[in-house]
């Protein structure tokens, strides 16, 4: 008989390396028509980070995402980057990209200020324009300013910057200190059906509420959460590399290494919690890794809720769950026989 259960799990996760420096550098060039180019040494590994970086640069310059072209991942042409690791790209590379764009913007403001008859710090950017704060009608198109910066002032608008998260060493005896600049938080709740005659677990639904600071791109955050949950489902129920007694792998292939397919995916409902980190670019932190952290815990708690057994080793395969159910029944049987 299928028994339904629900399980909750919350988690925390840091952004960036543990204490060690993990800087990123970036270069932003504003073109003569007001579009821009970002040079970054990070790598697009499928998560959409180059789009996030384009959005950050666009925001700083008051232009649209489509106006920013990103050149990435070439040691000859792009500045150093610690890379696509540790959920650090939005926060660390994002901060570097924002700071580089800010420097290019400062050159644009220096050019625009005398034309608008104000000091540079009275200016702001908005929708492809450089305008006076509080007087948006007095403005210049960013492309006109960029062209003038190059052609009249001889000061082409480009900026370079680097960023490294603020950490402090840990005491070697007690481990006390500041290992990370910031952390993100999340809760996932899983609903499962467990067949108490076979031990088979079906994950029906996962509700996920994630903190990533400001979501630079909510659609990409949702994509990360859905992908993380699929990894979590595999970790919880199916995936396991097996070795023989001599240390050779038994199942190094996709026939015998079982991982979730689209048919195993539960219904996923993603919420992004209101959050703002003043140390991140426009309040953003990150979301890559944390999405797969709480899933297995939530599923295992749901299995416990459904059939009353606590599986303490992953993956909770049907065999393992069924063995636990059988052991529980045997114990209950003994208790009944003893009349307690």
């Amino acid at each position: 008989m299928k028994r339904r259960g629900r399980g909750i799990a919350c988690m925390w996760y840091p952004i960036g390396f543990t204490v060690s420096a993990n800087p990123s550098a970036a270069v932003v060039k504003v073109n003569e028509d007001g579009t821009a180019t970002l040079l970054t040494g990070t790598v697009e590994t499928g998560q959409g980070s180059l789009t996030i970086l384009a959005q950050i640069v666009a925001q700083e310059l008051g232009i649209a995402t489509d106006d920013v072209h990103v050149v990435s991942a070439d040691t000859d042409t792009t500045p150093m980057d610690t890379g696509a690791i540790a959920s650090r790209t939005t926060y660390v590379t994002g901060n570097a990209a924002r700071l580089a764009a800010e420097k290019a913007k400062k050159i644009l403001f220096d050019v625009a200020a005398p034309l608008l008859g104000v000091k540079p710090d009275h200016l702001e950017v908005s929708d492809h324009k450089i305008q006076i704060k509080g007087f948006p009608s007095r403005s210049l198109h960013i492309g006109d300013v960029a062209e003038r910066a190059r052609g009249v002032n001889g000061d082409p608008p480009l900026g370079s910057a680097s960023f490294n998260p603020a950490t402090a060493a840990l005491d070697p005896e007690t481990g006390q200190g500041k290992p990370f600049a910031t952390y993100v938080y999340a809760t996932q709740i899983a609903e499962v059906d467990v067949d108490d005659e076979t031990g088979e677990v079906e994950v029906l639904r996962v509700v996920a509420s994630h903190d990533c600071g400001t979501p630079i791109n909510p659609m990409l955050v949702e994509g990360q959460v859905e992908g993380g949950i699929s990894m979590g489902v595999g970790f919880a129920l199916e995936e396991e590399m097996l070795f023989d007694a001599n240390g050779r792998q038994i199942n190094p292939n996709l026939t015998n290494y079982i991982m979730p397919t689209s048919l195993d995916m539960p219904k996923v409902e993603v919420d992004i919690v209101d959050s703002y980190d003043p140390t991140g670019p426009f309040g953003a932190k990150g979301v890559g890794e944390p999405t797969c952290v709480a899933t297995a815990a939530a599923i295992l708690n749901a299995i416990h809720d459904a059939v009353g057994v606590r599986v303490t080793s992953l993956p909770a395969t049907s065999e393992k769950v069924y063995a636990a159910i059988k052991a529980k029944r045997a114990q209950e049987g003994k208790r009944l026989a003893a009349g307690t």
Partner: protein
Amino acid sequence: MDKKETDDKKAAVIERESQTEALREMLRAPAAAPLAPLPLETLVPEVRQQTPAVRQRATRPDARLHGLGQTKYIDDFYLPGMLFAKIKRAGIASARIVRIDTKEAEALPGVVAVVTARDVPCNSFGPSLKDQPVLAGERVFHAGDGVAAVAAVTEQIAAEALEKIEVEYEPVTPVLDPLESLKLETPGLHAPNPNIYGHKVIRKGDVEKGFAASYRIFEASYRTQMVEHVPLEPHSSLATWDANGRVTIYSTLGRITLGRADLARTLAVPMSRIRIIATVVGGNFGGKNEITTEPVVALLAKKTGRPVKCTFTRPEEFTSSTTRHPIIMDYKTGVTKEGRILARQVRLVLDGGAYCSWSETTLAKACILSPGPYDIENIYAEAFVVYTNKTMTGAMRGFGAPQVCFAYESHMDDIAEALGIDPLEIRLRNVLREGSLSPTSQQLHSVVVRETLLQAAQRFGWNGAEVRA
């Protein structure tokens, strides 16, 4: 047979043939069809052109290329004269290499070069401990170690050549259980490095005092398994040298700055002569953080004077790339009658596999995160990582966090059940808040774990969540 019947049969044949022809035509169509111009303008999504840019659901330019089948992965790259490389795997978990004979492989028509450890200028690398060879020389530490590599004109010939390489091993008893490795004395299985190659302690407050003041104490143990990243695109790289002694490597690496440093070390070439271009990577999840095929193709390309490409097979993804650390986790937690955690003690043993890789980072993150997102005054967490003769463990999405979260959250539910408290409620009573001190006594900012609990509970329809929110 009358005429009508014959005509009917003829008509049926003709109809069948015309259908077959139509079917053939359909099958032929894609190859014969002219390349249609791409409808560039109509597909450009409006949202990418909006300001302000932040918080927009902007589509990805690479998604468009993926959708149109235009993304070029390394498997799609061919350079003139390019050779294909394959790596011979040890297939034995622990052994001394007595002899490697490559003569027969070299003599195979179509094979252009073979390299072994002797061809590697500096045969060690690693992000913290430099304990990993490009190709195993004297010692095999896990079955997935490479012992030789072949470059040939086709992949098939390269694979055939691997069969012709003779390696004589002197087996050494492998250590597969991390707890056994933890107990072993010198000389150790990875001498001169000690078996326990990483250790971390987090001590906050006084756990003994916390346990003494507790209403109840709970203890439990948990274990997790080894898993693979399983990216859709396997590890791959392509190297080509120019006449000035400069090498360009197209690679699936997610970290080119580190990759260039590792290549400069292993190839003994200045960084200024190495160019790494990371292509669009078909999935990383932490598995593509360090060099794998890159130094091998660079050496083969130098030796042959031709571009060389190597792509992992799916079995190599499992046997010869990094994996997630299995962790054995012991938890002891003291609580008040109301479910408030007063003290938590954690002991973690990480199976570090054959090489260090990113184990030190995983060890530290797992240890720091192991008490969970809870405000606990007294904590003692200790973590060890040990060598075993299994596939190396390293960076994988979450760096130890999914393992410890499984443990601390299972433990939390058991405590809640024993005390008769709702699982949501016990978490709300313990979670970190703005300004809370972490296990390392770091004052935390922008802490919203409570908000995520309430938001998820409300969405799910957990008892009473609506009232509390």
